[in-house]
């Protein structure tokens, strides 16, 4: 009997243990609930309601930065055109040069000094018009006035006399570079200073030759062209020849843009004179002109620092929606004003979005990945708009993690190295007005 009982007990253990093992196994089976089965349409409803809200107030305005740092511009900008809205836009560039070496053979004879400007593919407005360049010699030390930077508003004095003069039809995409011959008086002087070892280092050279300015002609109305700052594409070249026993051997010395000194002795001066009246009121960066006061439009001009400003003053009204909810998506749609752009005054595919505080101090970029992206899906119907995905920014505003006085501003990505301008439909501009499409999810109705 005892033996039998033991057998029975062993049987229990095996059976119970076996089934418990199966149960454990079934528990750990993750794909249990991984059903592909779709029940009937109305088998159940979602417990979550999504609401698309496009009626939240969007305040659009225009602001202008007092100045933009242009010592760090990625290109040389020069040219001039007259814009119906933004006025006369002029870009001129100032920079310092340093030679590769300070030795020239004492037997060498000066030939010529030329300036080579390599295109960097950037241009704005009409390149079929002729542009004129004046090369000027800077007469004061190329040092910033107050801090370590030059701005688009900085200026520097130069000799009225041209070191060089060049009239050309820009070919920024097809062309490689332009070559401007500088006056021989200047070339000879540089040559002899180096040859006679009056200048043997960069300090002496900079003291002697402070820099040059590239300035468009007063009468130009064409395009603004970008030239490269790299030493391979843009340089002064001093040609000279050395007589040997049989022939004359030509050689040259390159003089390159000085990018090594701090503060950087380089800047683009970019100005826009006589714009339309509303833009003239932008005298201080704290001033915002509401779109309603400027023809229901907002303006953007890089280089000069005019930016579209967008604010969401009534975001907290989301709390008026009954129930508990949360922002799931937010997209701002901004339409460029029709006829404000064309093949010369182009729209760009992306605009950068920055956050400013109530004093229009730039605090941060919206996010490293957020841009205003031009949606051209319905271009044939003239329905094109910039889209900005704003979910997280709106979340921060709603939760008061961010000051409600903060605003977004739109500027081209390379706003210190370009002169692109845009005119956007602001609020109050009928069906073209800027709207915020916000998707709000309600997960609890009470």
């Amino acid at each position, binding site marked *: *009997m*005892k033996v*039998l*009982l033991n057998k*029975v*007990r062993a*049987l*229990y*253990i095996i*059976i*119970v243990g076996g*089934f*418990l093992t*199966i*149960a*454990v*196994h*079934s*528990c750990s089976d993750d794909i*249990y*609930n*991984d*059903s*592909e*089965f*779709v*029940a*009937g*349409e*109305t*088998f*159940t*409803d*979602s*417990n*979550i*309601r*999504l*609401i*698309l*809200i496009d009626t939240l107030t969007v305040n659009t305005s225009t602001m202008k930065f007092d100045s933009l740092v242009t010592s760090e511009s990625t290109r040389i900008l020069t040219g001039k055109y007259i814009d119906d809205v933004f006025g006369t836009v002029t870009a001129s560039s100032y920079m310092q040069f340093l030679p590769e070496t300070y030795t020239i053979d004492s037997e060498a004879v000066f030939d010529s000094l030329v300036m080579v400007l390599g295109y960097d593919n950037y241009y704005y407005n009409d390149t079929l018009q002729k542009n004129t360049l004046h090369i000027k010699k800077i007469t004061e030390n190329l040092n910033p006035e107050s801090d370590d930077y030059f701005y688009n508003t900085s200026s520097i004095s130069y000799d009225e006399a041209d070191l060089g003069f060049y009239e050309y039809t820009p070919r920024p995409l097809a062309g490689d570079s332009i070559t401007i011959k500088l006056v021989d008086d200047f070339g000879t002087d540089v040559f002899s200073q180096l040859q006679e070892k009056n200048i043997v280092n960069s300090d002496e050279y900079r003291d002697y030759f402070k820099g040059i300015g590239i300035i468009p002609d007063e009468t130009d109305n064409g395009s603004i062209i970008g030239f490269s700052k790299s030493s391979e594409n843009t340089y002064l070249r001093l040609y000279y020849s050395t007589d040997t026993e049989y022939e004359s051997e030509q050689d040259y010395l390159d003089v390159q843009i000085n990018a090594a000194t701090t503060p950087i002795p380089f800047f683009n001066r970019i100005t826009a004179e006589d714009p339309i009246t509303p833009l003239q009121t932008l005298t201080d960066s704290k001033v915002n002109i509401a779109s309603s006061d400027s023809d229901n439009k907002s303006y953007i001009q890089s280089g000069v620092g005019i930016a579209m400003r967008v604010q969401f003053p009534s975001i907290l009204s989301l709390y008026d929606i009954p129930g*508990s909810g*949360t*922002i*799931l*998506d937010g997209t701002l749609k901004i339409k460029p004003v029709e006829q404000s752009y064309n093949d010369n005054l182009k729209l760009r595919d992306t605009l950068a979005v920055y956050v400013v505080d109530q004093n229009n101090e730039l605090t941060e970029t919206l*996010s490293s*990945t*957020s841009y205003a992206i031009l949606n051209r899906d319905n271009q044939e119907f003239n329905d094109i708009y910039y889209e900005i*995905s*704003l*979910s*997280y*920014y709106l*979340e921060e505003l709603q939760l008061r993690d961010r000051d409600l006085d903060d605003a977004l501003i739109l500027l081209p990505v390379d706003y210190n190295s370009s002169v692109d301008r845009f005119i956007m439909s602001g609020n109050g501009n009928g069906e073209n007005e800027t709207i915020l499409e916000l*998707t709000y*999810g309600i*997960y*609890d109705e*009470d």
Partner: protein
Amino acid sequence: MKINQIIFFTIAALLAFYQSSAQSEALTSSPYSLYGLGVINQTSIGKFNSLGYSGIGIKSPYELNNLNPANYALIPHNSFLYDIGVTGEFNSYSNTSSAEEKSNVNFSNLAFGFRIMENLGAGITMVPYSDVGYSILGVSSNIEGSTDSFESNVTGLGGLNDIKLNVGYAIIPKLRLGLSASFLFGNIEETESFIYNSSTFESIEKTNYSGARLGFGLQYDVNDKITIGSTVQLPTSLNGNLKRSVDKSISGIDISVEDESSDNVSDFKLPLEMGFGLSIKPIEELTFSADYKKNFWTDTNQSENIGSYVDQDIYAFGLEFIQDPTSYKYGQRLAYRLGYNYDNGYLAIGDNKVEGYNFTAGIGIPTSRGTHSMINLSYSYGSKGLLQNVLVKEKFHLVTLNLSLEDIWFVKKKVY
């Protein structure tokens, strides 16, 4: 010897309890478990699983009868009865366009019972009360204020357990009264998630339910051949306590919107349930049983977003054949069982009720002649739901294994 068995039993029980708590997130994988507290568990204990879940009027001294507490009065002197059950389920679902199959294995019950004194027996059972385990994909909803829609996935997991204390007392040998007190507890976790544009959203709502319920039972032996019984389960309401976590990801940033925040949830009401049962032994080898139960769901005034709760009628029939339970021949001690159960459903969707039926069959295998221990194997085939646009038809095969054991306590075993 005894002590060893007690130790073994305790370990097995602990393991099973551990299992059952882990299994409170059991997966019935029935889409119908979306509603209410989930699919209400029909499986019972021991042999009743193969008798079409009938048994209110069955007089069973050696097997625990969870259907009627009055039966506990019959537990013999010195007997300690216990029952461990495991179910294996194989389901197939279909609607008008697609079909899917699933299977799972679950703990089904743990029970024991013993005699307290002359005419008075008691026991505790632990059975799953309900199971939730569904996953519904592509629930499409309109985005208000637009012509777009979003598709979410809804899944549910969990279930309630029922720990029940049964006490049975025989006033006179023919008439037994019973009292049961249930403690129902468990949680149901519902998750809804979707992706909309570049945002993701997930809400997890975990509702803890708990409550107690009283029941009464009665059994009366009309004569040697006929026993009738009746049970009442009083209505009760289960207190719900909801914890919600909401997470989202917008602009590629993960954000916790709510983390285990509490919210009120309305109590879930269980109806008054009344049952009547009868068992007849036309010949000694054969027992026929029939039950009728009515659950008054309408009075609970509850509804789901697709339908409402309505009164439910359950009919159960069972037939058991044992040639001779005391025979020396093993084959003659085997029990053969058949049953049928029809349930017209408690959820009405439009005019349709989610009705279901089961055919059951089973065999009881005695383990030894010295005790009344049985290994009860039961098979059930059933169907639920209707094949219409809205509904899902569910067919299932259910195999239940119960170890229905008897231990003789307080008797010194003779060693042969």
